[in-house]
């Protein structure tokens, strides 16, 4: 039996209310809110969070990690490898980026299913993450949201078996972004609906059901991608799906998260599914991939904790000014504060274990966990001065408490003021680092924190990823 063995999700805590966008442009709001990646987040950092969330639930060793996205931070340099390092996967793990199409996530899922079926891999992680750029005052600006979803595909402890897959490709130009386009372009909506989206989805879903001799009534849930709620409802009418069967597309609360959008809907469906349920699942983008999932008894395993249910509501509402700044849509006044020196890539390489998965060491003589944040991987114990008597000790998965903090008005950040703290890790070890995703007025001594992989700053075109602390999300 091959199928989904674990699921994980990540939605940024920030929400931009669509009324705020409408107010900015004196336009019409479609209502609700869109999730916005923090100033220090991007496709890679959200993917890391979603993948870690999936691994918490799964626990199986991954032989492969595929990232699906249309917004990779580099045009040349693999994102999946960065993610695999941050979530601490084995060297032999096969990493791949699936890109350039909204359908990239289901293409990656199909490849993962094929790999597990063929025996070339035992477990493959598929993580979809997107923060797609919608130009100012446009329809997409309101519709698009940021988020990531992660599935583990495997053959043991399957929670939803893949019973069938059916795909069509379609060279149809509805949305596109060329090398020199900063924002997504699109053609007329009526043309997209009538010639592109509706017939393609109908053909694929009907093709899948015909192939497996099923009718729409055989599914307890029907989960499919649409550009927005209007299009989503349009297809339901056309296909005569029962309202009860439809998985709500979440666009009201988080927006359309691109390659992750359909997977996020699937995750919500799985959070609510019962053993024996059949789920119809279809993506869209240059064609469509449709799947039949059959929910197993093991579904209860992932239903013990909320995966996406607790992440749909935002925690921090932002203003349009913050949105402009974070998305680099306006040029800010240049700082007169001293600039940081450029990154040393050799130094970053030597420190790669610290940087990627926040590895410190634990002294084998005195048992002190320790992490050195400067280019000096510990050789001599800070506590007992034993030399080279260490074992690796991972801090990224440890929670901690805020021992002291400061709110820095001078810190160069796109979300001033900067919040910084002295973190004492549960189980030992201390680190002084930046905090993120804070409601500044709620920061206090003793606050519970956890670590999160973020973008510190860019230097010569390189994203300087590292770990920050954030308040524990209850």
């Amino acid at each position, binding site marked *: 039996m091959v199928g989904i063995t674990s699921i994980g999700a990540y939605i940024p805590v920030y929400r931009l209310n669509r009324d705020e966008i409408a107010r900015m442009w004196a336009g019409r709001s479609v209502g609700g809110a869109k999730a916005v990646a923090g100033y220090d987040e991007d496709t890679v950092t959200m993917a890391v969070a979603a993948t870690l969330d999936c691994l918490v639930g799964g626990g199986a060793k991954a032989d492969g990690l595929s990232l699906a996205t249309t917004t990779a931070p580099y045009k040349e340099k693999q994102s999946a490898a960065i993610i695999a390092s941050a979530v601490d996967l084995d060297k032999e793990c096969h990493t791949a980026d699936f890109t350039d199409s909204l359908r990239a996530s289901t293409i990656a899922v199909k490849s993962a299913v094929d790999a597990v079926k063929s025996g070339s891999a035992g477990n493959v992680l598929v993580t979809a993450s997107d923060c797609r750029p919608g130009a100012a005052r446009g329809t997409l600006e309101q519709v698009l949201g940021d988020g990531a979803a992660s599935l583990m595909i495997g053959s043991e402890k399957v929670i939803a078996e893949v019973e069938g897959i059916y795909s069509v490709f379609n060279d149809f130009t509805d949305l596109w972004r060329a090398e020199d386009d900063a924002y997504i372009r699109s053609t007329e909506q009526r043309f997209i609906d009538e010639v592109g989206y509706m017939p393609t989805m109908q053909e694929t879903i009907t093709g899948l059901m015909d192939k497996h001799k099923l009718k729409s009534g055989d599914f307890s849930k029907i989960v499919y991608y649409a550009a927005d709620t209007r299009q989503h409802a349009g297809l339901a009418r056309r296909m005569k799906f029962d309202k009860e069967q439809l998985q709500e597309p979440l666009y009201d609360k988080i927006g359309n998260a691109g390659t992750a959008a359909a997977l996020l809907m699937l995750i919500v469906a799985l959070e609510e599914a019962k053993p024996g349920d059949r789920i119809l699942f279809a993506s869209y983008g240059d064609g469509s991939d449709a799947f039949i999932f059959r929910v197993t008894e093991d579904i209860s395993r992932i239903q013990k904790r909320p995966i996406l249910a607790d992440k749909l509501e935002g925690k921090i509402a932002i203003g349009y000014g913050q949105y402009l700044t974070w998305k680099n849509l306006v040029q800010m006044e240049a700082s*007169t*504060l*001293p*600039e*940081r*020196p450029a*990154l*040393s890539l*050799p*130094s*970053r390489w*030597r*420190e790669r274990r*610290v*940087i990627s998965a926040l590895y410190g060491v634990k002294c084998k003589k005195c048992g*002190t966990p*320790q*992490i*050195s*944040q*400067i*280019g*000096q991987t510990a050789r001599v114990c*800070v*506590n007992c001065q034993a030399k080279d008597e260490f074992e690796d000790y991972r801090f990224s998965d440890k929670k901690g408490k805020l*021992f*002291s*903090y*400061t*709110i*820095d*008005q*001078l*810190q*160069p*950040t796109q979300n001033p*003021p*900067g919040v*910084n703290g*002295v973190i*004492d890790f549960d189980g*030992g*070890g*201390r*680190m*002084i*680092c*930046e905090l993120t995703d804070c409601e500044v007025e709620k920061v206090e*001594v003793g606050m519970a924190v956890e670590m999160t992989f973020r973008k*510190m*700053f860019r*230097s010569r075109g390189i994203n*300087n990823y*590292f770990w920050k602390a954030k308040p524990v999300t209850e």
Partner: protein
Amino acid sequence: MEGIKDKVAIVGMGCTKFGERWDKGVEDLIVEAAYEAFEDAGIEPKDIQAAWIGTVFSGLSAITLSPLQLQYIPMTRVENMCATGSEALRAASYAVAAGVCDVALAVGVEKLKDSGQTGVKGPSIVGDNQEASSGIGPSYSAPASFAYLATRYFHDYNLAPEEGKRLLARIAVKNHHNGSLNPKAHFQNEITVEQVMNAPIIAWPLGLFDCCGVSDGAAVAVVTRADMAKNFRNDPIYIKALQVNVGARQGAMMPDYDFVHIEENVLGSRKAYAEAGIKEPRQEISIAEVHDCFSIHEMIVYEDLGFSPRGRAKEDIEAGTFTLEGELPVNTDGGLKCFGHPLGASGLRMMYEVYKQLQGKAGPRQVKNPRLGLTHNLGGNAGTGVCSCFIVGNEK
């Protein structure tokens, strides 16, 4: 271990006006301070047998001293963060004590205002190699790195933010008063507690007046053998202790560090007291110039150096113990807060004030009958630092 006590004397000192010296370069500052020191010591540049220059950013190598046109003598640049100027004096004094030269020069200089930027650059983590940084250090400002102390001090001693900030404000008000009496200080204006309380926050809980000035300046000392000192002047100042104490990031890495004291300060001052033979620092020291880069640090230094009992600096601040008229005047020249903080010059600037006070030449700031003076620097910050603690006296 013998120690340095009474082996070396300072026989001449010079100090430029500190401040935004837009029309003066590093070379001007060095010449200005050095020639004041030469004149004070009654010597010519040719009498200098060896020289040390301390600067953090304003020049590589001792060739930075070339404006003085010293002719082919041993010269060395030293750097130890905010203790840099003090290190130059320590090196010159050790050379004299070792008997390898009789007259040595210690120069400290920093020209911060040529950067065209606000504030002071530095590694994001103390100890990091800026030129080879892996870039994982937090990007917070210098005030932020000291604000941790205030947050934790307020927390541990149950001071409401308003109450704690008001206490710190009194330190800034004191130092501004002292600075107002000092024509060489960067800032020479009096301020009020209300002004401090209403100033913009820089790094919570520290506000603008909790932070020292970013200044240009230089200070210079001429040192010689104690037994030769009277050949130069009748009122030489004798070195009693030169201690430098450096952390190894223990506080930044180990949860047992409390962020309400600085271990480097405690251990460094105790070693200095031992070297100088001081048993009761609060009673025996007449004047102290301490590292008030941020107000909270001056408060913690009162406790670290044993001037106030642990946790009870509040009582002494409220009693005015450290004012000009108080029991133990601290930062009589305005301190880093008002005199300014050109990193490499600061240690020697502090010594300049102590030197003048011990000679009875401090004008309107003169304290009564001083005998022993202390200078103290802390480079780095809470978690790891470079502490210098020097003691000098006007009697052998």
